[in-house]
């Protein structure tokens, strides 16, 4: 399982790349593996507001559907439209071409609540079968 050290994480298995007030968001390698083959990704539109811990979109795999929970609150500045056409990118490159949205956060203090790679690895160990 791949857990890049430079990223931050949530207990809903999302990763966040923080750059000032900008937060690039995707799902982790563990999450894509658990979901299996992803066939649709539903993302918000640019300009939409998202709220921390609330769903901002959904992801459909062959066997299951999951909500995507916003790690931080703010305004969506970019979306990765490549994954709506080629959702398999989320499976093949969860931290790269499979990224989902960029949010400009209005509450930078929320970024401090994110988990480190070490803490996220521990969380996954407790959840793994």
């Amino acid at each position, binding site marked *: 399982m791949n857990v890049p050290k430079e990223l931050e994480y949530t207990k809903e298995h999302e990763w966040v790349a923080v750059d000032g007030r900008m937060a690039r968001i995707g799902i982790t390698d563990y999450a894509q593996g658990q979901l*299996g*083959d992803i066939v*649709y990704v539903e993302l918000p539109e640019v300009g939409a507001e998202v709220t921390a811990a609330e769903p901002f979109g959904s992801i459909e795999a*062959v*066997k299951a559907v999951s909500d995507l929970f916003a790690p931080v609150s703010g305004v969506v500045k970019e979306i990765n439209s490549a994954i709506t056409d080629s959702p398999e990118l989320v499976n093949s490159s969860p931290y790269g071409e499979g990224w989902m949205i960029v949010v400009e956060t209005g509450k930078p203090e929320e970024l401090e609540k994110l988990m480190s790679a070490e803490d996220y690895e521990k969380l996954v160990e407790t959840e793994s*079968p």
Partner: protein
Amino acid sequence: MTETAEGKTRKTALYDKHVEAGGRMVPFAGWWMPVQYRSIMEEHRRVRSTVGLFDVSHMGEFEVRGRGAAKVVNRWITNDAGNLKVGDVLYSAMCYEDGGIVDDLLVYRLEDGFLLVVNAANEAKDFEWIREHMAPDAELVNNSRNTTLVALQGPKAEDVITEVGTGPFRDLGFYRWCRAEVAGVKCLVSRTGYTGEDGFEVYLDWDDGPAVWDALMEAGRPLDIEPVGLGARDTLRLEVRYCLYGNDIDKTTTPLEASLGWAVKLDKDDFIGKGALAQQKAEGLKRKLVGFEVEGRGIPRPGHLLLVNGSEVGRVTSGSFGPSTGKGIGMGYVDKGASSVGQELMIQAEGKSGIGATIVRGPFYKQGSRK
């Protein structure tokens, strides 16, 4: 089955093979079974394009013998086993008196009796039901715990089994069985399956499982054979609209409602449920199991509501993305008035916007190699 304590969950003879191959093992119907190895999508496509191998040892196998076997088997099932010749296989439902379904099963006419193959989740219940309805001049044996069952499925299945087995595989008709050897192991082989593709199901002694599994995997290597888990087994069967007990049929549904009327022979001698089914047929069905395709994106899931003009007409019983059809597909019971081919439906998950779908005729995937 969630109610099964993990400590009691059994392992098939092939458990170690699945773990070695990277299978993700889950408790299912009281057994540890692989839900997938590499990818449901790839396993599914491999079965459609060449060949895949499934462990289905969790299924239940009962044998019925004795002077009264033919008569009593025919009393349990809705289809007619009366004209079966040795070597025939028959699909049937088995009903309660009220017409609700106990299980769906395969009936093999053996040289000296019958083999019944039932769903894993129903094995104990079915055995009990059958025992309660036994005849004094017939004997019943449960071989579920000493039978390994593997399914070799796909357009190239015949080439693989011919490579490693000895038997009349090329001449074996669909829904026929023969005695054969695979990798030197005596077994019963039938041309049956749950995928819509050509293929064989191989019944053997429990302990012979690993050797036969290895031999089939080795013989299939030039054809890129893959082990296939329960995830792809479900998408394969749904694409050809085979019912799954517990989803599409159960004790609250009748075979007539489930479009299994072809397997209900009301003109044969009395069988359990005949009266109720005859009455239902005479009165007309109030609901019907239909299949529908999603027009755009979105995937139906079991439990989603089915609406026409905002009114509920039924619920989804099976739903998935169809890896070979490229769209969301599903089945569900709808009111008779909303069950025509071409009927537009709205599929509604709680708190979500609806997905448009249309009722279609026949299997979703029609290009299968099934003989």
